[in-house]
């Protein structure tokens, strides 16, 4: 009797428990089904204040045009965004339209998470004619899987007030790398023990400087970071050694800065403790909000007559489990997000550049004191074909620590970075 009662209780509570779950599921279903006329789609992007605010505005505009569609924006902190996306894959749930970093696309396309954009609405020729060539990084096996609203490139930011204090012309930024180092030395202030009170230039490999080493310095030293098919690392070469010697010397010999100064370069530049930084166009929105910061932007300094920059983009794709009405609505939303109107608004609000050449390369934008340098550098910028950006960034951070903390030779440090990265590339391409 006693045992029976227990069994009864257990099974009762099991049934109750599953009822609750079932009911919750039903309610979910009902909400979706009953909406009938209105199709609801979900949009994911990482949280960046100006972006998420603008998106709210854009969604309002879109919904006014399409009263039968409702778009729900969900954002996640940047640090967890990729994890969040990845963990939504095995469960087969998630958004309909999703904003992904171009470097992550291979992973998500391989896993079948994204569906190719239908050529009826997004013909390849039209994309290739209208968008910047770097957008081809979103093309796999002949199909485009995602399209950006905006692209970004790197440029040099300089603090005009600090230039004046150092006796430099505040309107004359460095044009060559040699000038960059000279200026940085003049702009660095240390106490009598050699501690930095103000640094001349950012050395933040964790932020944008790994791009500077990889796509700018190595090329300026006459090398290339990767083979043409992107499958092999080629910076374990004299050009790679020269580039990294130059970079580590900025701290060891020229003494114009160090990583982590004031915790990170954005903080340091914002607070006027760093005179020059290399950052993306997306930073314009942040820096314009800082009171009392009087800064200018210019193209990255050239060396040996070579100009280079790094370009990248976040692109919007549609998940493969989106079908029927939701797919129709998602395609309309994607069309809206890649429209000229939205691209112009995006530039004003975020500082990211229109992804369409005709829109970006107007004289008005090319000569704009803030966007201009970024737009001009798009013509010679390179978009690294990343497979796993976090690994590809970390090899440079470790190489730097090996040289600066462990007194390793440049050659050993760079070779080790190359070997680690090659191993990762091999394991990716060999599984194709």
């Amino acid at each position, binding site marked *: 009797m006693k045992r029976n009662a227990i069994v009864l209780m*257990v099974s009762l509570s*099991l049934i109750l428990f599953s009822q609750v779950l079932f009911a919750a599921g039903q309610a979910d279903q009902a909400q979706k089904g009953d909406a009938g006329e209105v199709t609801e789609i979900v949009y994911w992007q990482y949280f960046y204040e100006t972006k998420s605010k603008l998106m709210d505005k854009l969604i309002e505009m879109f919904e006014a045009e399409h009263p039968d569609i409702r778009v729900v924006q969900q954002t996640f902190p940047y640090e967890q965004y990729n994890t969040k996306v*990845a963990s939504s894959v095995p469960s087969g749930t998630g958004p309909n339209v999703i904003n992904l970093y171009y470097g992550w696309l291979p992973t998500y396309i391989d*896993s*079948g*998470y994204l569906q190719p954009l239908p050529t009826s609405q997004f013909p390849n020729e039209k994309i290739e004619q209208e968008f910047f060539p770097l957008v081809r990084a979103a093309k796999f096996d002949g199909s485009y899987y995602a399209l950006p609203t905006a692209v970004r490139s790197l440029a040099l930011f300089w603090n005009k007030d600090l230039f004046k204090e150092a006796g430099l012309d505040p309107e004359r930024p460095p044009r060559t790398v040699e000038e960059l180092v000279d200026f940085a030395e003049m702009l660095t202030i240390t106490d009598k*023990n050699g501690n930095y009170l103000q640094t001349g230039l950012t050395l933040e490999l964790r932020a944008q400087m790994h791009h500077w080493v990889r796509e700018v310095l190595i090329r300026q030293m006459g090398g290339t970071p990767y083979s043409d098919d992107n499958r092999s690392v080629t910076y374990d070469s004299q050009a790679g050694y020269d580039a990294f010697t130059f970079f580590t010397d900025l701290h060891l010999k020229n003494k114009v800065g160090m990583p982590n100064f004031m915790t990170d370069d954005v903080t340091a530049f914002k607070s006027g403790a760093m005179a020059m930084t290399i950052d993306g166009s997306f930073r314009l929105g942040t820096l314009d909000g800082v009171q009392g910061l009087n800064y200018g932007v210019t193209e990255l300094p050239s060396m040996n007559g070579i100009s280079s920059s790094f370009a990248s983009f976040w692109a919007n794709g549609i998940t493969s489990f989106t079908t029927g009405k939701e797919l129709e609505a998602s395609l309309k939303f994607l069309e809206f997000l890649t429209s000229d109107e939205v691209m112009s608004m995006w530039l004003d609000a975020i500082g990211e550049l229109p992804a369409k050449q005709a829109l970006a390369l107007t004289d008005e934008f090319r000569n704009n004191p803030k966007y201009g340098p970024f737009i001009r550098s798009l013509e010679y910028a390179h978009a690294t074909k990343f497979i*796993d950006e976090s690994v590809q960034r970390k090899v440079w951070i470790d190489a730097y620590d090996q040289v600066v*903390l462990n007194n390793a030779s440049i050659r050993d440090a760079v070779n080790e970075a190359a070997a680690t990265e090659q191993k990762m590339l091999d394991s990716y391409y060999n599984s194709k």
Partner: protein
Amino acid sequence: MKRPQSYTIEHTKRIWAYTFLVVPVLFYLTIRFYPTFYAFFLSLTDWDIVSRDKNFIGLTNYRNLFQDPIFWKTLSNTGFYVLYGLPISLLSGFILAYNIDRLKKGEGVFKALYFLPYITSMVAIAWVWRWLYQPAPIGVFNKILISIGLPQQKFLFSQTQALPSILAPTIWADVGFQLIIFLAGLKGISRQYYEAAEIDGADNWDQLRYITLPLLKPTIVFLIITGTIRYLRIFTQVLNMSYQGEGGPLNSTKPLVLYIYHSAFQQFDMGYAAAMTVILFLIILMITLIQLKVMKSED
């Protein structure tokens, strides 16, 4: 009507107790135990979270693990955290508790003071200490060093200083917990033993050695076991105090759990990460069994 004999109030009570316990049991089965066992299976696959297939690859993950220098580095870092963190926090917890126990006044104030860090969020502690450790002009520690004419220290940016620098706030927060439990243990020892010992002429040291410590043994066992597990699973501090949660510089502060987290949620190498969790599980199991055995055999 006569109530069946087996249906006493006692039984009704018990049934209700079981009914209430079913919910947590279900919760633990689905949320805790199922994933735990699933991890054993995952460790034998090459699952990368985003692909649909989980291919069985036997012991390959374990073989790769034993050849991975970072795995050994994180294992030795974890050992460091346990071997330095636990004894220091245990000893300081005991010394503080022993002295607070002898206070006539202000016991509550001291208890609150030392316990505060423990109830503070580890993330908050980690970030505050991270700022304290920064180079001048931000970091307070370095500013003090400079003001008394000493050279700046690298702290979190040095391969040798970073791990102790992360351990310091961990111990600082942990001491409060050890102290409170020790204090409870000390209060549980009857005054009569000490009075008798005093009559027999035992001094403070004798009392500590022959009365306090032996009678505190259950407390010590509890604190060592829970402490070992806590230090073995160290994660939050390192994630928040090392730059971008890398466990750097050059993996010098990266504990095993952080490596598991990176493998699983950054490299998406779930199989490899699962293999590491299995190893960590075995280590924790082994240490706990050894500790229980050692403590029991001494009885």
